[in-house]
């Protein structure tokens, strides 16, 4: 290129053509100017591009900041959600504070945290939780809180939070908190359970690049509320648990007392049974003699008796029989209670027993013109019991029914099948048992106060004996009665196993 130009110049000079030189020179100048213009354009473009780059960077920076804020908010919300779930499912006060850890705290956008609760009896704030503080820092914070406890108590009293977001009225307090907790950015929210100790939660960061907003303050307030709610639940649970424990203790004590009383009762009952048993035995011998001598005299083997004497002797004989019967019943009760009677159980047909008993009472039934209705279920026909004892049950109950049923009345005997038992109901259309006396009819020697009982003699031992026999078979006995409408006496007895 340069060589060609040089040759042209040389040709011009050699040719003496000044004009050619001028033309060439101006052509060269023009090209140089063009190049300059292009460079200038390029430089301008580059500068313009650089200006555009500045705009891009600034826009990008704003976008990134917004994105970061958004990410922070989402992470914070996730953390709050998870933390709230964890806290609300905890029922132990200590565990509630342990749930808050540095991972959650970072997601909420903070580095450090601590929580204090006011102990009324000690009149001081007690540390319940701390994250990312060194022990000496915590001691410093405790001292600062103790010095300014009225300020923190005021916050709690009015359930008022405070944060490093600038507010003119709080400037001095904010600076104090920053200094006390060693964080330039912070939020304090009150922990307000309805009952018990209240306090506050502090979260903060040393990082001055972090900016907090009203939204952050709101998140921490929600967290503090959740902690408060969880504390309330935990305390309520503890209270309920303690009450439950107390109740259990009381039940145990009462059970122990009842067991002791029952044992004493058993001992007393045994003594009574033994006493009745021995007295009855002792009475039997002289009674036998009395009855024997009365019978001899009545037979007039020792000479004829005047009618007055004979009448008196007949009374002695009859009363001796009644007394013997009573003593036998008493002895039976005592023997069953003490377990001395062994039940000879076997499979029995209920229907035949009932028929046998009705046959026994046929004369009385006929005399009083009482009709008997039998409802005997096929499936409840068999029972597993001692024949003689069960017959005594039926004799007593049917006898009672006949006794209390007025002439031309009705007696209904029903049998039903239960799971592994048979139920027998003996219903009469008698005078019924007065309500106030219903609780006593199974007691020994208890006789319902009514006109029939006043006319007919009885020992008051029949139902007591029946109850003992039924219970000795593993059955139950009860009744339903309404005055002047009749009584239904029911009892259960075991059925033979299949």
């Amino acid at each position: 290129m340069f060589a060609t130009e040089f040759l042209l110049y040389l040709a011009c000079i050699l040719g003496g053509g000044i004009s050619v030189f001028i033309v060439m020179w101006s052509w060269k100048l023009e090209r140089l100017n063009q190049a300059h213009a292009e460079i200038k354009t390029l430089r301008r473009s580059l500068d313009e591009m650089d200006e555009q780059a500045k705009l891009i960077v600034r826009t990008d920076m704003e976008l990134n900041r917004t994105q970061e804020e958004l990410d922070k908010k989402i992470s914070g919300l996730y953390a709050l959600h998870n933390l709230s779930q964890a806290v609300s499912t905890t029922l132990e006060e200590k565990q509630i504070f342990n749930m808050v850890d540095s991972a959650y705290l970072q997601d909420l956008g903070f580095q450090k945290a601590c929580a204090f609760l006011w102990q009324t009896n000690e009149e001081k704030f007690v540390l319940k939780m701390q994250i990312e503080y060194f022990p000496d820092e915590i001691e410093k914070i405790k001292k600062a809180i103790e010095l300014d406890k009225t300020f923190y108590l005021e916050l709690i009293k009015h359930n008022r939070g405070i944060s490093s977001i600038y507010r003119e009225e709080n400037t001095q307090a904010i600076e104090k908190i920053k200094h006390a907790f060693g964080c330039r950015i912070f939020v304090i929210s009150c922990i307000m359970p309805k009952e018990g100790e209240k306090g506050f939660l502090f979260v903060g960061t040393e990082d001055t690049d972090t900016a907090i907003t009203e939204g952050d303050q709101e998140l921490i307030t929600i967290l503090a509320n959740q902690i408060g709610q969880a504390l309330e639940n935990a305390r309520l649970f503890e209270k309920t648990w303690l009450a439950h424990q107390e109740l259990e203790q009381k039940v145990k004590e009462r059970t122990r007392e009842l067991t002791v009383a029952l044992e004493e009762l058993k001992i007393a009952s045994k003594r009574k049974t033994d006493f009745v048993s021995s007295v009855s035995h002792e009475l039997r011998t002289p009674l036998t003699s009395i009855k024997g001598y009365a019978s001899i005299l009545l037979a007039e083997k020792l000479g004829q008796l005047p009618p007055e004497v004979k009448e008196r002797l007949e009374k002695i004989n009859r009363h001796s029989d009644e007394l013997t019967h009573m003593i036998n019943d008493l002895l039976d009760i005592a023997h069953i209670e003490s377990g001395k009677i062994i039940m000879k159980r076997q499979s029995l047909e209920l229907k035949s027993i009932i028929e046998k008993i009705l046959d026994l009472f046929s004369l009385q039934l006929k005399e009083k013109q009482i009709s008997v209705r039998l409802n005997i279920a096929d499936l409840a026909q068999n029972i597993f019991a001692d024949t003689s004892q069960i017959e005594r049950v039926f004799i007593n109950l049917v006898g009672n029914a006949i006794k209390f049923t007025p002439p031309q009345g009705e007696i209904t005997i029903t049998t039903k099948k239960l799971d592994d038992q048979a139920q027998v109901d003996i219903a009469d259309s008698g005078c019924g048992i007065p309500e106030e006396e219903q609780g006593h009819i199974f007691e020994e020697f208890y006789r319902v106060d009514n006109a029939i009982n006043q006319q007919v003699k009885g020992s008051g031992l029949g139902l007591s004996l029946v109850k003992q026999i039924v219970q000795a078979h593993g059955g139950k006995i009860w009744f339903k009665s309404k005055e002047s409408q009749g009584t239904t006496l029911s009892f259960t007895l075991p059925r033979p196993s299949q």
Partner: protein
Amino acid sequence: MTRLSKYTNILLIFQATYPSLRVKIKASIGVSREKDCTQAAKEAINQAKANMPYKKFDLAFVFASIDLCYPSLLKTITAELEHVPLIGASGAAVITNLGILRHGVAVLLLNLPEKIFFNIGCVRDINTKTPLSAGEELGAKLLYGLKNVSRDLGVVFSDGLIKDNHALMRGLQEKLGASFPLVGASASDNLRFLKTCVFFNQEMLSDAAAGILWGGKLNFGLGTRHGWKPLGKPRMVTKSYNNAVYTIDGLPAAKVYEEYLGRDFNELKKELKHITTLYPIGIFLFEEEYLLRNIVAIEEDGVLVFQGDVPQGSQIRLMIATKESCLLATRQALAETNVKVKHPDFLLVFNSISRYILLGRDASKELQIIKNSIPADTPFVGVYTYGEQAPLKAINYQGKVYFHDQTITILSIGE
């Protein structure tokens, strides 16, 4: 030096004849998110042991978040492993194929075939000794344990708060060779820049570095990418010394950032952490390769102090990235590793904390990209770092290892 067997040659001949029967590295991983460091250590190590089909372990890599970095963490792990060598570092978060652990510990156990050898070493009191001489000391220690074996690769973990990490690398290169492949990670904490740790057997060290030198027949693939793109016109570093840049285009260095970001000097200082994460400078190397540098401080006279050397006369650009460009860089780094390793046994991932901040909630996408590019169940572990060390690809740099910022460095080991 570990294990030299008289059967090695026979084994190698056998393996050459039947490549498909080559003995592989067996790797198993265990992680824990427990808050108590002893409990976390127990859970992670027991999990890793349970996942390993063999009872013999040769080496353990441990990475933990800074909140678990208490002496009992390593004591518990080493007690379980007895005399197995252990190496690792703390991080702002731990990267594993089982997820990113912001609070947790990961243990990678290796069972190595007989043809692979290694030696681990550490250097303490780096700032007292100077990073350069500490690097030399570490290099010498690593070499001492691996004599008469061809050396393949070095992996180094250093305290992320050491002022001149680049000098530490230079010291290592003095001993291991200028172009010897080295990969490293600067340990980090939870962005509080208070304390970072490197793990060496049962010791948890600060102001220290620990390394491992591999030898024998280790096959590895390495990929390092950042995804940041140049923006604005090129500028010239007109005055600098080591990592301090005094003037750019003849003006105080901070002026460039003030202009681009539209912030005054004080605002720039206040927003430093944010700015340096998103907009580092890139030193032009070759074609599209830029070496990134983060600002660590802005001096009153407008001097910018970077986390690595910026040579005087360098052509620099302001760099910018998007989440997409970051994730594309991850794919590219993985593609680089795949060139040499088709069937990885395990991966080590050292990822810049800046990328973690930029990606935000999308950090898990990056993890998924890694998982998608390797066979299922291939374990990988690593940490988010305050800097990465890896060779430069530019030809005129001859594979020399440099200190990087904002990169993801993936080391894939396998066949």
